[in-house]
């Protein structure tokens, strides 16, 4: 029997397999190369970068909860210029497919970041719209279809034809409406879900566990929420949907593909085991062999309801 084909199409891009790293869990792409060579992944999604370096939030920044963890890193990053100069050339030199994740505080930030990355050889731009919009009192861009549409349109205008994917927050009245706004603005794909706003407290000290008080929940605990929203979006959109949320095994990844995802991002699992993305790729291959499946399109969206 022939070896299964794990490759997937994400808009104009062909990924060698459907497994990518979720932004913020794989650094700028080379930090974990000894455990997970970036060129073996579908794509490396690098740590989100802003126009200038951001210092992030005060400490403590993380609290483990049942089946997950809450983080409030505050999007600490080196800034887009340092990323382009120092991180990107080395990462591209490995042969990896690279998606650069971008962050802004205003729609204009996103447009400028897209314009800057248009001049580079990144393969894909992932737009994090879960950041607070400073002009709107800190409300997340991702909460409203209108704001997501505005950001996505600016990226589309400035990205020089490079494909971009909008990473959606689960914190919306209707995630499908937001996803459709991204699609209409020209996104090649949407990815979801980002972390779920959450909180933990320290009873003994009568204090919040995080210095930032609130953070974002990730890990296996959020997988059912993610699966539902990915299923909703995949059912309604014509562009590919990338599933994110609590994926730590090949089975988890395949469940997302079954409900309609084209590809997946692995995040928190990589923090536990830096080799997790590779194990998931290999697990998908083994599963396809067992099932006699030679192409993932035979599984995608095949949920029997």
């Amino acid at each position, binding site marked *: 029997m022939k070896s299964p084909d794990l490759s997937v199409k994400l808009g104009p891009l062909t990924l060698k397999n459907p497994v990518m790293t979720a932004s913020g869990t794989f650094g700028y792409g080379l930090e974990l190369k000894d455990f997970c060579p970036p060129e073996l992944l579908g794509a490396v999604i690098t740590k989100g970068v802003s126009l200038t370096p951001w210092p992030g939030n005060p400490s*403590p920044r993380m609290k483990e909860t049942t*089946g997950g963890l809450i983080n409030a*890193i505050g999007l*600490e990053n080196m800034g887009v210029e340092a990323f382009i100069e120092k991180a990107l050339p080395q990462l591209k030199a490995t042969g990896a497919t690279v998606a650069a994740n971008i962050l802004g505080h205003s729609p204009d930030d996103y447009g400028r970041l897209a314009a800057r990355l248009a001049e580079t050889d990144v393969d894909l731009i992932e737009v994090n719209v879960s950041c607070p919009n400073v002009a709107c009192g800190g409300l997340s861009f991702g909460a409203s279809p209108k704001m997501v549409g505005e950001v996505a349109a600016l990226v589309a205008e400035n990205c020089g034809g490079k494909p971009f994917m909008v990473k959606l927050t689960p914190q919306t009245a209707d995630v499908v409406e937001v996803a459709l706004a991204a699609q209409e603005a020209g996104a090649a794909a949407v990815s979801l879900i980002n972390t779920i706003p959450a909180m933990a407290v320290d009873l003994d000290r009568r204090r919040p566990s995080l210095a930032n008080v609130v953070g974002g929940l990730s890990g296996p605990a959020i997988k059912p929420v993610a699966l539902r929203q990915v299923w909703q979006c995949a059912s309604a959109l014509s562009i590919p949907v990338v599933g994110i949320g609590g994926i730590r095994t090949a089975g988890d990844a395949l469940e997302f593909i079954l409900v309609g995802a084209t590809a997946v991002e692995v995040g928190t699992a990589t923090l*536990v085991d830096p*080799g997790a993305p590779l194990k998931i790729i290999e697990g998908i291959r083994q599963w396809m062999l067992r099932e006699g499946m030679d192409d993932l399109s035979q599984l995608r969206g095949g949920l029997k309801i």
Partner: protein
Amino acid sequence: MDETTPAALIRPGRLVENRPLAENTRLMVIDCPEVAASARPGQFVKVRAWPETADPLLDRPFSIHRLSGGRLELLFRVVGPATEIMAAGQPGDTLKITGPLGCGLNSPADYDRGLYLVGGGIGLAPLAFVRDSLPSQSAARLFYGERCGALQVDQAWLKTWAGDFEAACEDGLGYGEKGLVTAPLARALAREVKPVFACGPSPMLAAVTELAEKFGAPCLVSLEAGMACGLGVCLTCSLPLKNGGRLKVCQNGPVVDGLAVDWAGVR
């Protein structure tokens, strides 16, 4: 501290011994030769003593207490579900070990005139390995502080690796003097200035750094912070520096110059 650390490995470790030294404090001996072979004093390992698919989600970081015959010794306090599982570990159990991690004490030979080793509570953990690495163990002196007598480790065991030491106990219900560990340290610094290496709760590290600065003594601290990956990517363990920058405890630390840390921003 430089960042040239030996490459981290993920290896199975075999639990050889797991015994109590005080209420909630235990010593674990783990056979994990490849990780032990490249470990430096002050470095740490991540431990997972439960299945990959089960809670707790994250592996847990522990300073390497000591190397003995190529085995890793970990000193740990039972503070939650992960350490409760570890406390129940039996000889022969397999653990997942990731390490060695972080920057430790890179040039122990520089401390040929000795070090004042200061341990607060479970901050004792890295000090044995540090002491063992010094050119002259007799020139090192341990200062051990604890909140209450019930938490103090077995005194005879402590003597086996620390030699003579000075202890301070806040509730006065244990061995040593009543009060904070900074009191005997201050007296020692007044007698003779030596570099300080401290590990313990951050208020203690801040106080020790201030004291060392007052006496003009270099002060290394081994930091602790909530940590997810331990490999420098997640930035959860990031702490503020006085120069406005930040450090990753897992990668730029855990051993750093206490004077560089912005203690007001460490909680």
